[in-house]
């Protein structure tokens, strides 16, 4: 044992190292493998072809989220392709002896919402999933990484991945956030500062007063969009909030075993004096409610700012700004506030948790959805839906003119019937504003916090949520 101070990433990486591979990669043990219906069927097929079993079926958990309809989840689904994908997952889980959290289980939901909710996401663990937003789970102090389908096969077969060790960048957000400013705004501000590829080759450690002050759900939102900043994983050091959140969860030990676990979890946090490959600081008080105006998440500005002009962009960014302005058809130089919206979407693995719905409902209570705006609320999981219904949030949303849906990924990537139509502009609490992302090849997305989405739904245009709450 060395007394040299270490950061969390070093500790977790060391604890999971199986061996060094030639060429400088590490064979890393993956403690928890999360599986969903879209990126796994080919991996199971490859495993079958190789004649290999699932090596650690008890460390593998599945759910259905991407393709599931949110209007009615009665089987068979209206879309035969969606039905086929779930049937295939059911067969693969049955044959592989893998636990599947389907709608009948009462635990179904977006994979990155149910992991923490069920206590599968633990400090000091390694988590992999065939989904880039796996970074979400880092909120608990885990190394959580998104992988492709061939790597899903690797994990099914060996419970390991071959990985190059990334560098670690500590991002300190000092001070306190203003009211009406959320974790979503913080991560968008980080991406704006460091760029959409600034994190390539890095793991991000989020720290500082503003991060310490966040509850677990806000930390999940923060880590969720690490990948939008180019970082394959991001994490927050576990603290007493982390431990309190985990107590009593389905897969978390109880009694003395919990105390032993909690003591380990505290020990996994970065040591004082630990070294980092890079340190970046942000001032929380300067962060405004933030909105994207373009075609990637780095194209974002504060709600009080104006849409960029090509002339004002750096040489390196100009072509991208021009392409984005052309696609979005927004007026360069005009204030972003006031931009009309056709659709409002509240949900996703970024912002589909109970605290997100509470904040959005606070806004929804103040008015009615503007005529002509289609507004939908999609809870992140069945547990989130139950909690919201118990608190009467569904009634608040319905009374204001929002549709209250069943859980799933929904309009974040539109693999189910929830899609934009034509050139619609959507105020969205999701994570990506790529061209065509929300199901229409010409559809447009403005990313923002759930409270801002609710405010935009009521006003029919982008407004500063601080003027509403």
């Amino acid at each position, binding site marked *: 044992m060395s007394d040299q101070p270490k950061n969390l990433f070093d500790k977790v990486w060391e604890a999971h190292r199986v061996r060094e591979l030639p060429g400088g990669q590490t064979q890393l043990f993956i403690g928890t493998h999360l599986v969903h219906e879209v990126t796994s069927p080919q991996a199971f097929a490859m495993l079958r072809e190789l004649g290999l079993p699932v090596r*650690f079926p008890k460390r593998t958990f599945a759910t259905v989220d991407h393709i599931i309809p949110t209007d009615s989840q009665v089987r068979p689904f209206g879309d035969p*392709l969606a039905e086929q994908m779930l049937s295939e997952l059911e067969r693969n889980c049955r044959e592989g002896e893998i636990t599947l959290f389907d709608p009948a289980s009462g635990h179904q939901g977006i994979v990155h919402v149910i992991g923490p909710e069920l206590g599968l996401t633990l400090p000091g663990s390694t988590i992999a999933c065939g989904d880039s937003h796996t970074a979400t789970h880092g909120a608990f102090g885990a190394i959580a990484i998104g992988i492709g389908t061939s790597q899903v096969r690797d994990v099914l077969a060996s419970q390991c991945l071959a990985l190059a060790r990334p560098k670690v960048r500590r991002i300190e957000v000092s001070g306190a956030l203003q009211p009406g400013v959320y974790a979503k705004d913080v991560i968008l501000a980080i991406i704006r500062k460091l760029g959409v590829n600034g994190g390539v080759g890095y793991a991000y450690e989020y720290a500082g007063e503003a991060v310490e002050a966040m509850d677990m759900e806000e930390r999940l939102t923060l880590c969720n969009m690490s990948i939008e900043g180019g970082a394959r994983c991001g994490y927050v050091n576990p603290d007493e909030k982390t431990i309190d959140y985990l107590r009593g969860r389905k897969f978390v030990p109880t009694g003395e075993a919990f105390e032993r676990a909690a003591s380990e979890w505290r020990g996994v946090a970065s040591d004082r004096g630990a070294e980092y490959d890079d340190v970046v600081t942000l001032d929380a008080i300067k962060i405004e409610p933030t909105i994207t105006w373009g075609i990637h998440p780095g194209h974002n500005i504060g709600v009080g700012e104006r849409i960029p002009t090509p002339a004002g962009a750096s040489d390196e960014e100009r072509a991208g700004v021009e392409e984005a302005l052309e696609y979005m058809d927004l007026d360069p130089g005009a204030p972003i506030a006031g931009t009309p919206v056709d659709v409002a979407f509240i949900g996703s693995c970024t912002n589909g948790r109970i605290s997100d719905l509470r904040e959005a409902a606070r806004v929804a209570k103040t008015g009615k959805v503007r005529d002509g705006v289609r507004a939908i609320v999609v809870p992140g999981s069945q547990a989130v839906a139950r909690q919201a219904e118990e608190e009467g949030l569904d009634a608040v949303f319905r009374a204001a003119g929002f549709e209250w849906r069943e859980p799933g990924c929904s309009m974040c990537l539109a693999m189910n019937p929830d899609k934009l139509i034509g050139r619609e502009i959507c105020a969205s609490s999701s994570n990506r504003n790529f061209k065509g992302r929300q199901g229409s090849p010409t559809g447009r997305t403005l990313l923002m916090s759930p409270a801002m989405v609710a405010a935009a739904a009521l006003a029919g245009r982008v407004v500063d949520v601080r003027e509403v709450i």
Partner: protein
Amino acid sequence: MAGRMAGRKRVEIEHIEGRGCVIRGDDIDTDRIIPARFMKVVTFDDMGLHLFEDARKAAKGKHPLDDESFAGAEILVVGRNFGCGSSREHAPQALMRFGFLAFVGESFAEIFAGNCTSLGLVCVALDEAEIEELRGSIELDPSQNIAIDVAAQTVTSRAGVMQGSIPDGTRGQLLEGRWDATAVLLEAGEAIERRADQLSYVRGY
């Protein structure tokens, strides 16, 4: 391409040669490479049919992939942060099934690059000026042969020999035929279970 499609076999990838195609633009995400609606399938078989489908429709026949002079190209030249966004392996699968074996760009998103390696596809990074020069050269003469030497990390074209980079670990995987990781990972044998037994959350607290 059969060697790569077959998977599992230990195929050493040392050289890629073929004609080039240029897709301009930075931060091209995997949703653009393969829109999500085409992922509602349980195999990768038809991915190549929908490569850049929306971008091609929007370009009304003017997209590089629909340009006859680039037909049959095996090397795709791209910009910065190519393949960002979703982890979908459907993106490199679509590119591979369309016929591309290698990508030369200013930089690549991490998960995309890892997925490419898993399929035996090569990603080489060149600096911005050289990418621009290579684009110009290929657009001027799309019939020319482009050669990638994985060990030397070079890209050779009529524009000359350009020194690129491929990360060390990836280069080793390609050169030694270890890019299909399953077999390599399984070689660790019982060491995997021994590691698992040392982790209290796996073993039980």
